[in-house]
C-alpha cells in the first residue's frame, strides 16, 4: 500500500482520475496505432518527470493537458516511421462502450467518432490543440489557461478550427 503523500500515490491518483485525457490526446496526436502507445508512454513519463514541479497553482487537469499537449507537439520518437506511413494506413480507433443501447446505433456512433478522430488528426497541430480542448468541453477560460492565449483569441482560433473541422468532416462523409 502506497502512502497517500508519496509521488507514486499522487501519480496513481492522477492516472485514475484523468487517465482518459492522456489516452485521448495520444490518440489525437499519433496517427498510427503503434505510435499511440509510444506517445502515451512518453506523455506519462513526462508527467512523472514534471510531478515535483507541480505546485498546485493550476488545476491538475490543466497541468495534465499542458504537459501532454507540450509532449505531443514536440514529440519526435519514431518520426520517420510515422511520416512514411502517415498516408498509407490510418490507425484503428478503438473506443469504450457507448451509452447508446441499440447495437446499430452504437456502431453508427462509433463510426462517427472514428470519422471525427480522423478529421481532428487532419487539422494542423495548433488548430488541433484548440479543437481537442473544445471537444473535451473546456471553456474558453480553461483553453486559455492551457494554451497561454487570451480568451478572445481562443474564440478566434476556435472559430477557424471549427470551420476547418466541419469541412474535413463533410469531405470524409462525402467519400463514404
Amino acid at each position: 500500500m502506497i502512502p497517500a503523500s508519496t509521488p507514486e500515490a499522487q501519480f496513481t491518483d492522477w492516472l485514475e482520475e484523468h487517465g482518459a485525457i492522456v489516452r485521448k490526446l495520444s490518440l489525437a496526436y499519433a496517427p498510427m496505432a503503434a505510435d499511440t502507445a509510444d506517445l502515451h508512454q512518453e506523455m506519462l513519463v513526462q508527467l512523472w518527470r514534471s510531478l515535483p514541479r507541480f505546485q498546485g497553482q493550476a488545476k491538475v487537469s490543466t497541468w495534465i493537458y499542458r504537459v501532454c499537449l507540450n509532449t505531443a507537439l514536440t514529440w519526435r520518437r519514431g518520426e520517420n516511421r510515422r511520416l512514411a506511413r502517415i498516408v498509407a494506413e490510418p490507425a484503428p480507433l478503438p473506443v469504450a462502450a457507448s451509452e447508446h443501447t441499440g447495437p446499430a446505433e452504437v456502431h453508427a456512433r462509433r463510426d462517427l467518432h472514428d470519422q471525427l478522430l480522423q478529421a481532428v488528426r487532419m487539422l494542423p497541430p495548433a488548430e488541433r490543440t484548440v479543437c481537442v480542448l473544445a471537444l473535451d468541453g473546456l471553456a474558453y477560460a480553461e483553453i486559455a489557461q492551457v494554451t497561454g492565449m487570451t480568451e478572445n483569441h481562443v474564440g478566434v482560433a476556435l472559430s477557424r478550427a471549427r470551420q476547418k473541422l466541419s469541412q474535413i468532416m463533410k469531405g470524409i462523409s462525402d467519400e463514404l
Partner: protein
Amino acid sequence: MSFEEMQQIWRENEPGPGAAPAMGQPTKELLADVRRESRRFDRRIWWRDFFEISAGLLVAGLFGRLAWKAQAAGLVPWVGWVGAALPLMVAAFLLVDRIIRHYRSIPQGEPVIAELDRALAEVEHQAQLLRSMAWWYLLPILLSILLLSFQAHLQLPLVMPSGIHLLKSTLWLLFLGAFSVRLWHLNQRAVKEKLEPRLAALAACRRALTMAESG
C-alpha cells in the same frame, strides 16, 4: 453536423484503458513502466555525458603527462600545458551545457505557447552549437593535436631523414584536415536535415497560435 454534436460524439466515446496496446495495464504496472522508462532516460543521458566528458579528460590527462615529462626533461613545457588545457575547456563547456539542458528538459507545465518558445529556443541552441562547432570544438581539439604533434617532435630524437619526416607530417596534417571537414560536414547535414525542419515545424505551430491572437 454541428460542433455541439461533435462534442457529444467525442465525449460519449471516451477511450478506455484498452484503447491502444500498453494502455490497458493496471495503474500500478503502468507506474512501474513509467518509472523504469524515466530511469532509463536519465541513465542514457548520464552515460552519454560521461563518455563525452571522459574523452575530454583523458586527452587532457595525456597531454598534461607529456607536458610534465617535457618539463622534467628540460624541454619547452608550455606547448603540452596549452594542449592539455584546450580539451579540458571543451569538456567543461560540454558539461555546463549538458547540465543546463538537462535541467531545462524537465517539463515545467507551462502553457503551450510558453513551452513552444522554450522548445524553439532549445532547438535553436542545438543548431547554433552544431553550426559553430568548428570554433568551440574542432579548432581547440585540432590545435591541441597539433601541439601534441609539435611536442612529440621536440621530445623524440630525429632518427629519420628530413624528407620522410616532412612527408609523414604532411600526411598526418591532411588526415586531420579531412577528418575534421568530414565531422563538420556530418554535423551541418544534421542541422539541415533534422534541426531546421524541426525548427520550422515548431515555429509554424507557434505562429498559428499567435496569428490567431492577432485576429
